[in-house]
């Protein structure tokens, strides 16, 4: 719908009330104050969904975080005791590990996914399609099942241990229950979330620009540093941000592969809401986690021109 057609239907056409002459005087000033562009009205459904489905629960979580322990209602006399407890207890360990693992996973994902993305952009046609199918296919299996599969693969008397034992007479023993395997799980699970933004970013790099730089004497590294990377930066930043935020909120990898070697902050949040019977504590931890993720989003989004990325202008 264009702005003109919108004007025709909302701004100037006669409503049933106007035709009957009832209520028109009441509605006209109110309608007149509403914006008359299609963008406003097109965004309305999503805005309402976000308002009630996203910001509403978020407000509840914030309210709960200021309630005393044992509260099962967000309305009451506010207190800072949950935040004080979080500072006084050793929650910094969970926050620290979650942050560190998210950063390491995002960096590793970038290193793994970038060459793959370059290959997929430059490999047009069927080969790229095969890569895409191979990468997307695991997404159709639940994350927990895939991680349980890796656990059985790496654990003592698992596939790897058994195969090594039978082939070489020396098994690997258990390779689960440590932090590197948790990071491996994060990289495995979130690979598509890095790869596809990178592909989108790399499609912004015109082949002509690379060729022109080469013709002017630039080395391959200079072409990568001065041409490819700046033009693909929005995809790199979006992919990194996405993977960082998802890894920050990940818990299954630590449970299935870490076997208690490390406790991510989301596990603490889950524990507070369930076994801890402490919704306010869980809410306060959630608020802090959201603030960390939001800070990362703000930092990255200030450097990204989303409009340019998607419209390729």
């Amino acid at each position, binding site marked *: 719908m264009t702005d003109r057609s919108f004007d025709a239907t909302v701004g100037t056409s006669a409503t049933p009330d106007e035709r009957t002459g009832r209520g028109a005087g009441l509605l006209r000033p109110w309608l007149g104050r509403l914006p008359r562009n299609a963008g406003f009205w097109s965004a309305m459904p999503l805005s309402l969904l976000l308002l009630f489905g996203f910001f509403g629960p978020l407000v509840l979580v914030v309210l709960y975080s200021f309630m005393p*322990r044992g509260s099962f209602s967000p309305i009451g006399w506010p207190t800072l005791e949950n935040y004080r407890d979080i500072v006084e207890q050793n929650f910094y360990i969970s926050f620290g590990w979650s942050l560190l693992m998210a950063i390491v996973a995002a960096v590793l994902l970038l290193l793994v996914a970038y060459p793959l993305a370059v290959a997929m952009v430059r490999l047009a046609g069927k080969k790229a399609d095969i890569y895409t199918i191979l990468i997307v296919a695991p997404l159709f299996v639940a994350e927990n099942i895939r991680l349980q599969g890796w656990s059985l693969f790496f*654990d003592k008397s698992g596939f790897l241990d058994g195969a090594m034992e039978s082939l070489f007479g020396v098994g690997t023993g*258990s390779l689960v*229950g440590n932090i590197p395997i948790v990071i491996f799980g994060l990289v495995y699970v979130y690979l598509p979330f890095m790869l596809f933004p990178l592909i989108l970013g790399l499609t912004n790099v015109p082949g002509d620009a690379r060729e022109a730089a080469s013709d002017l004497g630039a080395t391959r590294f200079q072409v990568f540093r001065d041409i490819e990377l700046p033009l693909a930066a929005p995809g790199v930043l979006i992919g990194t941000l996405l993977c960082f935020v998802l890894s920050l909120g990940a818990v299954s990898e630590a449970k299935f592969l870490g*076997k*208690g070697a*490390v406790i991510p902050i989301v596990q603490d949040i889950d524990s507070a*809401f369930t076994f801890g019977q402490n919704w306010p504590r869980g809410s306060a931890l959630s608020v802090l986690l959201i603030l960390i993720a939001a800070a990362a989003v703000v930092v990255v989004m200030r450097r990204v021109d989303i409009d340019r990325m998607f419209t390729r202008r």
Partner: protein
Amino acid sequence: MRWSCGKRPRAISPRWATSARSLNIHAWEGYTEEPVLDPFASQIGATVNPQMLISDPAAVNNLRSGGTSTWDLINLNNAWQRKELYPEGLITPLDKEKFKPLYAMNTPGFEWPYLWAMDQGGDQLLGMIQRYGPSGIGVNTDKISRETVEKGGYMEIIEGAKGQYGILDYENWVIMHTCMAAGFTPFRKHTEAEMESYRELIFKLFANAKKVSDDQAALARDMITGEIIAVIPGSIYSVSAARYEGETQIESVVPEEGIEETKTAENPKGKAGITWIEVTSLVKNPAPTPLAEAFLVYCHTPEAAYRVAAKAPGTLNPIVQMGSPDVLAQFSADELEAIQWGEEGQWLETNLSRCIDFDINPDYAAMHDMYTEAKRSRG
């Protein structure tokens, strides 16, 4: 409807089949599976919507936060009904005249009036009991003998098997068993010295553990492969599936020497483990359905009772209705071996005699804080 003592319950009345069409159950895994629910649903012609519990406290919170409008039946470990749900008006008493006769099916120790099924005044019947079991330590007896663990108790594992045991991370159960290992019951107020002992021990428990997981099947597998030799806590529910597969070296062992405050003239060694028993109650739903009562009756038919005990995914458990010959006859020798039944039920009875009953821990909040601190300190 009324049944005489010890008699097999009759089929569900067709009256229920026409008065309601949907039953919502919030329960532990034994009651939420197809082998149990499908025959009931087809017999009644109703839809049964199960939601499996992930923990007692979480389910209680769900009820407190408005879940009474969602569920018709709630199945939890004992004590919650008697001490929290009924006083808070979240569950409805059962018709004693209707349900009392079913208690005649139960094994000794669970007869009418059973403490944890009654309200604190002893007047109201708050639910029906079914699955139960002793909780102690899960052990691979090929690696460390039952006798060694029975004599040495929890510290034989926590200190003697440092770096070789796992923790089954059902948080409230870890806390309760740590209290027992520290030498006092979890189910009363604790002194500052006891809280300090608990703190010290729970940090040691986590520091010395090789693995921490809430996946009982994975921990049982780790015991079978020799990756670990024991699991704290370990109940029949966490070892029975492995035992049923022929891995009978995996056992739930309850230490012989109990905590001082449980020692009596009749029981000079006291008690070191904890017995849990599930109680299924009617939720105080604003729109109650007669299907809820019908389901409770159905679970007492020998076939359904057996399926509750033996057909849950990944676990087999004793049920109190095994006091009825009709119910006991449903079990195979392998299934009885899996639940450590023993000759005439003596093995199970011995382990139960070493356990105190599950109850509410008044210091749970403070102890849970220490528990999470100890768990985080592993990282």
